[in-house]
């Protein structure tokens, strides 16, 4: 039935002059054609379409059959496939490229999540054929195609383990490999263009579209992907994809070292400057740097002569971006990039003026957030490891400035405690023969110590909350009093001691006594309450988290908490007492 209808409309249209077909003609052709294809009569449809007499009809109306055709091809029913492929090839040759492009991209866009990979891999070659037919005007169409394709491919789940990458169940690897083949002729064309490195060639439309494609790929899917190294997975389509993207960038005239240093070396305002910013999204460049320096992708096309300090400086921009995000994958990559950049630099080599750069302040701030707030324990630990590594790379003066900055801004007792421990290590180092310096001995040390040996809120400071900080600072003080003999006084601590006693030790002692008394009283009354009242379920306060009330603390638990607090105070007290002992011994010694 449908076949007859198709023959009829085609025959009628043969008579129409100048291709002035009516909308009804189009509709009839499409309806009949679709039905025939869906019914499996593709052989007959093919013979109608290739008939010379129907050439004009096919050229105008043929592309509308793309939809049903592609659906048939995706079904992969063997008996129909060869004819359907033949129909497709014919249409690709005969119909208008622009219309074909629209039809094909529509199919890509409309693919549901289960069939994205199949659709993309099926249609890449046809799309390439059509685009090449567009000749010199193809640039914007290439751009549109690449954008549509990548948007769909980015929806595919990213393999996590090496087995998943090998199995490629959702087809991401297949699509990436096919995409590379797809862009190849366009890249070859541009290679010729960029031989003359001038403004015109840089603004070449096709080049810009390819650049956009590379940048977008770096962001999605590459930023999400965790590449496996060659020892783990010898043949990795994703690694090949990443490598090829960087090679393409290089081939279309983008210098990788220039991309690395883009955000650090601000160019003078050039016409179209804003456009330049948009062309190079920071996130994509961050991914590129991670590929280069952590995964060692395309390392043989990247010059080995750059100074490690300069590379670190450039990477800080991208580290800052990655560490300011909350997704585990971004944080992981940020930490890895930071670590790899630091490792290349010699210890004690980063000079103090680097600290004047914005990123050398903001990255540690971000790192502190990761160390203290990130729910993932591995990331917290790694964050701390990288934090210490970064400290080790600074010169002595820079360490000093950094510690001072952190003490003033971190507002977190754990971090402060960690910094104070580092200060102690630096003082210890400086006291060794031939290590003397102005920063952790001499005139600069005392102002730093004043930041360490103080209670943020005087005697009312919450000792439990500030435990880490207080313990480290007491340890530091105890260490200095033992290590630095009072007759040498290299650190100046002995002359400063009376001030420390007044400003720190005495208020601390007061606070300690107050806290102990308070908690002891609480404990006593809790115990009495427990004995006297049968109904030990009554609680003094309730705690609500996220609209859910937490189970009330039983009296047993409350007692435990109070005892644990008292134990903590004992800890502080033991160090404090030891310090007071040392001081007393010296004073007796002197008098």
């Amino acid at each position, binding site marked *: 039935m449908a076949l007859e209808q198709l023959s009829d409309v085609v025959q009628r249209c043969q008579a129409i002059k100048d291709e002035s077909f009516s909308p009804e003609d189009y509709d009839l052709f499409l309806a009949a054609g679709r039905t025939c294809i869906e019914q499996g009569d593709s052989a007959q449809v093919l013979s109608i379409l290739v008939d010379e007499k129907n050439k004009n009809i096919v050229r105008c109306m043929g592309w509308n059959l793309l939809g049903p055709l592609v659906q048939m091809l995706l079904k992969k029913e063997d008996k129909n496939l060869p004819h359907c492929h033949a129909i497709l090839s014919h249409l690709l040759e005969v119909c208008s490229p622009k219309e074909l492009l629209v039809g094909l991209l529509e199919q890509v866009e409309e693919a549901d999540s289960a069939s994205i990979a199949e659709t993309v891999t099926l249609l890449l070659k046809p799309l390439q054929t059509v685009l090449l037919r567009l000749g010199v005007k193809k640039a914007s169409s290439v751009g549109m195609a690449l954008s549509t394709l990548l948007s769909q491919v980015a929806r595919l789940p990213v393999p996590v383990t090496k087995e998943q990458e090998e199995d490629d169940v959702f087809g991401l690897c297949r699509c990436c490999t096919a995409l590379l083949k797809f862009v190849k002729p366009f890249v070859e064309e541009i290679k010729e263009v960029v031989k003359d490195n001038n403004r015109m060639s840089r603004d070449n439309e096709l080049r810009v579209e390819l650049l956009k494609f590379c940048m977008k790929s770096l962001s999605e899917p590459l930023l999400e992907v965790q590449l496996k190294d060659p020892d783990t997975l010898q043949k990795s389509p994703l690694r090949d994809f990443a490598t090829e993207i960087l090679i393409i960038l290089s081939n279309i005239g983008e*210098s990788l*070292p220039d991309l690395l240093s883009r955000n650090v070396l601000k160019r003078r305002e050039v016409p179209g400057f804003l456009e330049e910013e948009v062309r190079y999204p920071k996130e994509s460049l961050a991914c590129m740097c991670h590929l280069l320096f952590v995964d060692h992708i395309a390392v043989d096309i990247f010059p080995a*002569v750059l100074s490690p300090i300069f590379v670190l400086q450039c990477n800080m921009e991208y580290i800052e971006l990655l560490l300011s995000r909350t997704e585990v994958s971004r944080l992981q990559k940020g930490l890895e990039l930071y670590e790899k950049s630091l490792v290349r630099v010699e210890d004690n080599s980063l000079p103090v*003026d680097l600290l004047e750069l914005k990123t050398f302040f903001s990255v540690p701030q971000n790192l502190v957030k990761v160390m203290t707030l990130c729910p993932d324990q591995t990331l917290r630990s790694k964050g701390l490891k990288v934090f210490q590594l970064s400290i080790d790379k600074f010169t002595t003066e820079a360490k000093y400035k950094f510690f001072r900055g952190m003490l003033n801004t971190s507002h977190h007792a754990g971090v402060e405690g960690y910094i104070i421990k580092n200060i102690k290590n630096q003082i210890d180092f400086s006291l060794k023969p031939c290590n003397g310096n102005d920063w952790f001995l001499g005139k600069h040390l005392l102002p730093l110590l004043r930041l360490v040996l103080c209670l943020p809120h005087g005697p009312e400071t919450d000792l439990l909350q500030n435990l880490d900080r207080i313990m480290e600072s007491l340890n530091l003080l105890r260490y200095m009093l033992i290590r630095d003999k009072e007759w040498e006084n290299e650190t100046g601590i002995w002359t400063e001691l009376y001030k420390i006693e007044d400003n720190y030790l005495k208020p601390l002692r007061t606070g300690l006594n107050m806290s102990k008394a308070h908690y002891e009283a609480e404990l006593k009354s809790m115990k009495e309450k427990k004995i006297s009242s049968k109904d030990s379920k009554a609680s003094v306060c309730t705690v609500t988290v996220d609209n859910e009330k937490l189970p009330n603390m039983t009296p047993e638990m409350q007692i435990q908490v109070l005892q644990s607090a008292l134990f903590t105070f004992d800890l502080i007290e033991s160090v404090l007492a030891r310090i007071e002992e040392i001081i007393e011994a010296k004073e007796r010694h002197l008098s």
Partner: protein
Amino acid sequence: MAADPARVWNEEQLKTEEVPKKELIKFIQDNAAHSFLAEHKLLGNIKNVAKTAKKEQLIEAYNQLFESKRFKGTEVELVTEEVQAVKIHDTPKESKTEAVDEGPPKFTKSILKKGDKTNFPRKGDTVSCWYSGTLEDGTVFDTNIPASAKKKKQSKPLSFKVGLGRVIRGWDEGLLTMSKGETARLEIESDWAYGRKGLPDSKIPPNAKLIFEVELVSID
């Protein structure tokens, strides 16, 4: 010895707006001995001095200068640390720290092909070069010269601003001694290359001496 500088302004002029602070500071900085400037806190960037010094103080200093005649060249200048330290201030975004340590250069150069001997790059110039780098045992660890001549037409030499610490020190120092068109062999000791760390990713072991053949193509 040159004659003492003359008083350009009289008392009346000094007090008025006719003589702005910055001009006064400049005059004193240009003509007074270093120690005089140090005592009167007039050293350093004119803008900063203008911020901290009052007009009255400057007039006072100006008068004192002519009374004491402590002009430049009249005293043995004590070259202080500030004057000696080479600190280059540039746009805040660029960090250029120049090592103050002097010592013998840690590279040697042998000229393979002479350059024009007239055009030498200065710090901050953009240079372009073809190069290949080998280890002492001959392993090539890096090069930007493609294998075939045809490909060389399609590639570009490496471009960067020289003397600013963006490349290893051996390169920064070495390239400054080359003239346009020159091809040289630079043997760089590890201290001015990748030092104790090396670059394992790029096959450079720790403490490696690097040998480069560099052709300086252009200077901008």
